[in-house]
């Protein structure tokens, strides 16, 4: 909006062209740029074997070597090629992010739809639980759980996925509450559709469109969460993610800048891309206000 002193009763045709113009001018650019960044990282991870001949786990004699033609991103303390580790690390980070997000979005959608659809006591209880999960320091919970039950890809995915659903649940619930009162739902109800059918056939399709937004933001957040766990030394050393590379980099921060710079760049690019994509898809430049009211 380009209005400095806003009017409350601006006729629709005054505001609409302006908002649409502003949106068209800014949103797609951000969204497209985000999509491009994400595409680059996905391609990098998928095409890793074609982009480098090096093995991310193969030890070499050339330890802590600066970036060169042989090793564009340098080598680590055990002589492993950092470029290969970043490319293959993308598979781990993106994979964990994708699977965790699948769990959290699925769970959040189910809980949000049930709470928003049935309302009443069930809604009250589910929202209290959601609020509790939202307040608790989820990354610290993840740290304690993974420390106690052991690290490993599956554990990381499960823990991050099971802790990250509240944001999606709240948005979906709000959306369902609006749809619930629309006429086509009443019509379907009158023609004898049960709650399961209503939810699956009539409400879910209306929520799906903006689950895309939620999903891309959730993947970003899951990748960040994973890098947090790995940075604290709870990653799977067999499958080094970007977070794990950064943890190793921390040990040689003063000697080898390339160990932190490149994996961090990949991580930041991916997360930024996903956030841009999510923002672009949602059509609003600012994050949605999360009000308690």
């Amino acid at each position, binding site marked *: 909006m*380009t*209005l*400095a*002193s*806003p*009017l*409350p*009763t*601006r*006729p629709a*045709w*005054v505001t609409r*062209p*302006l908002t649409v*113009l502003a949106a068209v001018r800014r949103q797609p650019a951000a969204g497209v740029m985000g999509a491009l960044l994400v595409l680059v990282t996905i391609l990098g991870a998928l095409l890793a074997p074609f982009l480098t001949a090096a093995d991310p786990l193969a030890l070499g004699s050339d330890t802590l070597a600066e970036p060169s033609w042989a090793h564009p991103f340098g080598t680590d303390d055990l002589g492993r090629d950092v470029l290969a580790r970043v490319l293959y690390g993308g598979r781990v980070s993106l994979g964990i992010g994708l699977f965790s997000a699948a769990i959290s979005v699925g769970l959040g959608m189910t809980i949000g739809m049930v709470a928003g659809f049935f309302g009443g006591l069930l809604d009250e209880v589910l929202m209290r639980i959601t609020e509790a999960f939202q307040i608790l320091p989820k990354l610290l919970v993840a740290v304690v759980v993974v420390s106690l039950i052991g690290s490993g890809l599956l554990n990381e995915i499960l823990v991050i996925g099971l802790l990250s659903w509240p944001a999606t649940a709240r948005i979906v619930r709000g959306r369902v509450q609006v749809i619930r009162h629309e006429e086509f739902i009443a019509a379907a109800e009158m023609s004898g559709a049960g709650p399961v059918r209503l939810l699956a056939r009539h409400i879910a399709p209306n929520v799906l469109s903006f689950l895309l937004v939620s999903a891309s933001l959730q993947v970003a957040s899951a990748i960040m969460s994973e890098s947090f766990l790995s940075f604290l030394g709870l990653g799977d050393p067999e499958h080094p993610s970007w977070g794990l590379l950064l943890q190793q980099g921390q040990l040689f921060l003063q000697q080898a800048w390339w160990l932190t710079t490149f994996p961090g760049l990949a991580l930041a690019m991916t997360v930024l891309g996903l956030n841009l994509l999510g923002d672009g898809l949602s059509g609003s430049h600012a994050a949605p206000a999360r009000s308690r009211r």
Partner: protein
Amino acid sequence: MSAPLLSIRELGVSFPRKEAPSTTVVEGVSFDIMPGEIVGIVGESGSGKSMTARSVLRLLPKSAELSGSIRFRGREIPEMTDEEIRDMRGALVSMVFQDPMTSFNPVLRIGDQIGEAIALHDRARRGRRALRDRVAKLLALVGIADPAERARSYPHEFSGGMRQRALTAMAVANSPALLIADEPTTALDVTVQDQVLSLLRELNENSGTAILLITHNIAVVASLCRRVIVMYAGRVIEDGPTDEVLTAPRHPYTWSLLQSVPRIDQAGTRLTAIKGQPPDPATPLAGCKFHPRCPWAEQRCGEQEPALSPIGEAHGVRCWLPMNGIAAAAQ
């Protein structure tokens, strides 16, 4: 006759657009308001009446372009500095807005918000106590019981009618010479509407405040205003004494507007809605803006726009074929 309090000439408001002609929402609007006069502006939503009212206080959206002349007591408002216009807002000219539910800041006390209106223009810098007393007096004036106590309330603790009264109290806090009321009763219950209207009438009678009343409700105009201005598609299409305009309209639009209002003395007759839609200001339309909906339109109506021309004492109409008033009643 004395000099007009407010004198508007050839007022225009438009929104420039990129790579397209700008959208004009107000064009060629001219009228005067005398001290102590109550003038009504009627029109549908989108007719430019609110934009006209807001131009007077320069409260238009930032992207709006203002043209023409607005003189208040002989001073050109579009030429004032930001500071001069701020000194005028709320002190000499004040405004009451449509929705009393959203016009108060929800997190500040009612009394503090009214007090702010006073303090902003208080050159004598009265103390807190004097300010509190003045606020209580104002709330009492608009008929709020227990005013000193209620001043400490928050907006959500007031009913809609009480908020509109408090809003009016805030607008008259500095005894302005002109009060612009933009749809002051639209959001209210009928009984509360009457209270607010009598409040406005009292203000006018007791302190001589001139009032510019923006409304789409003809009954409100009939009960309060001596003069009425009818706007359509950003233009003044008729301007005259209320009783004349309402009983013997000269513009077909005014006539159809009156036909669409239920009247007690004509119970049982059919109400006729005006066919069609007002023109979109983003697409230019040649000729009279009403011609596509006008049952009497001729060829020249679609080619050339008529000017607002006098048609009787203090009565003007913007039409090539003004109705003769007698025929209108018979239609």
